[in-house]
């Protein structure tokens, strides 16, 4: 399992939004309730984030999660890889980690080990 390590991009979130053409770095925070109802909004947010060179995903607040959410993240990860954007996890909650593990998607998502709340 990949260890959570401070990355260069995580250190400069302030640059976020300063450049309009292709932002250097974007942080996407996953909501506490990540289930189906929240996903239409999350999808838009992730699509917008794809323009950035580096994307930081914060999964530390996630309390509720379902298969659809992990499918969404899997697709996002694939899309980001295809565009050459660097995808980094700022951390994942136990709930997110456990669900990804159970669905066999933890490796695909390169999810870090859970940060105990």
């Amino acid at each position, binding site marked *: 399992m990949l260890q959570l390590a401070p990355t260069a991009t995580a250190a400069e979130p302030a640059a976020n939004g300063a450049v309009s053409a292709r932002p250097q770095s974007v942080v996407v925070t996953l909501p506490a309730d990540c289930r*189906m109802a929240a*996903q*239409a909004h*999350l*999808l838009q947010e*992730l*699509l917008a984030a*794809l323009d950035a060179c580096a994307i930081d995903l914060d999964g530390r607040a996630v309390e509720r999660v*379902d*298969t*659809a*959410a992990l*499918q*969404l993240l*899997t*697709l*996002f990860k*694939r*899309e980001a890889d295809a565009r050459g954007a660097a995808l980094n996890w700022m951390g994942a909650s136990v709930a997110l980690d456990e*669900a990804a593990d*159970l*669905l*066999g*998607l933890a490796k*695909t998502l390169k999810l870090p080990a859970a940060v105990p709340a």
Partner: protein
Amino acid sequence: MASVGVAQFHQVFFEESLEGLDAMESSLLALDEGGDSELVNTIFRAAHSIKGGSATFGFPEMAAFTHEAESLLDELRDGRRAIDGAIVELLLRTVDCLRGMFARAQSGQPLNNAEAESLREQMAAALGRQIEPKAPPSRRAGDHADAWRIDFRPHPGMLAGGNDPLRLFRELAALGELRVQPVLDRLPPLAALQPAECHLGWVLELRGQVPPDQISRDQIAAVFDWVEDECELTIAPLHVVADTPVPAVAAVPAGKPPAAAAVHSAESGSVRVSIDKIDGLIDLVGELVITQSMLDQFREEFDVAKLALLQQGLTQLARHTRELQESVMGVRMLPIGSVFNRFPRLVRDLTQKLGKQVKLELVGEQTELDKTVLEKIGDPLVHLVRNAIDHGLEMPDRRRAAGKSDTGALRLEAFHRGGNIVVEVSDDGAGLNREAIVAKALQRGLIASGDQLSDEQVAELIFQPGFSTAAVATDLSGRGVGMDVVRRNVSDLGGAVAIRSRPGHGTVFTITLPLTLAIIDGLTAAVGSEHYIVPLVSIIESVQARPEAVHRVTGGGELFRFRDEYLPVLRLHQLFGCAGAQAVIEEGLLIVVEGDGARAALLVDGLIGQQQAVVKSLEANYRRVGGISGATILADGSVALIVDVAGLIRLQSRSKAA
């Protein structure tokens, strides 16, 4: 398996499943009379939900049982099997058996019994004859293995149906060691994703935790029970274990909820209310709030010029309050159809057993009754319908001899009359057998040989406890438990049973029931400084007694001559011990009342008016008092007692007898 979280849904599951069984039954009966294929779909859907539900909620026996029925229904649906009387009969018995299982599940007893086993075998036999050749071989061989490979490809719509693979995998993980490999070959581009659609697939490997620990195919299949229509699923053993029998108990999932947790009282404490009714309530409350704010204006500044407006507002307030009250009461009202629905089946079974031909007609199923009344009216109606078929309606040859059609007519009808609900059970059979009833009454010493009885009096005899004219007590009726119980049950509900019979033309039983038990219409009567409410349903008339109409008889009783009858006078002030009341009959007022077929005249000081009274239980708040059915609160805040007329008459005749 989450046994704690799921148990709270048991009651809802039971209720829904019982409704599903009702739907199955009525559809099966319609099918028996030559219904269309949509009926089979309805039955199938009901069986399918019960199967899925019982697997989810931890009733594997029920799931396995329903599975057989579902397989049969599947063949009917595909047209692989013809619909005939035998299969309908088998499925009807399945419905009965499932009802029994639900009853046992509710009281925490073991679900299976000999009947269930035998039915399941019969269904399997029926299926086996048909499907033996194409039964999948893997289903037979290798039903136990220490490791399984499960290919699971959900259809896109599965997540939207509320079935999440996360839950399924968690259940699988509880069975053994689970390895999950996602299959990502069907994923769409992110921009095209509908988040609710599932494009993932999985290959799972499930191993028993310790090498000899085996998992059965059924255990795995049970996990996927709910979703088997919504995915492609193959379950194959990774290593087949050669013929190692597994004790049957091992097949029960470990997380089965403790049976004792399922103990619930059979009477459900909830009402399902249609959205229309709720919307109506919300509308009314809205109106009420508007009226209230309109009235509020007058509090600020009032001048006499606005008096008309104020009066108008108060009238509106009164109307809305009344409408709101009616609507709230309406929440407790349910259509009587739910009770009527059980009769087609009952009639079908009885007529088959007795070799009679009966056509049942149901009228007024939409008539609404208070839920409490509805729950308790079923048994009396069953008694009446059984009696009508067993005693009332004749065998086809006798009907023909009497110049009637072979098929007897049985009619159940519900309608509103006045403030009451009337339920009538009528048949066109032979009517009451006057001679047999009189002979039986003589034999039992209920009447003397010289008594001249009117038809009504003869009819009244059948309501005596233990009275039956049937020569042989069948298991249908004739055991003499029936009509007295019917009358008692109905009068417990504040209703009455009447009987009308014409020899050769049939019998009509009329049950009159109050609309609701929570509110009664009554007359407020003054007795001394107290107020009593006399229910309007029991009042025949109120009269000012002339001196010559009252007769004193030896032993201290008084009789009032009302038309051609002499009625006992009950002095309420004496019975209830009220001081300062009118003791002279001619100065007071007599209310002629009827209860349980007996009449009496109640002496009160005078009548104050008619009103609706919200009944408060005396038993729940104080204790049971003879002659009083409850209490209510009057407009001025004082308490008035509600007179139980039938109880009062019983009380009086008992004290006289003593």
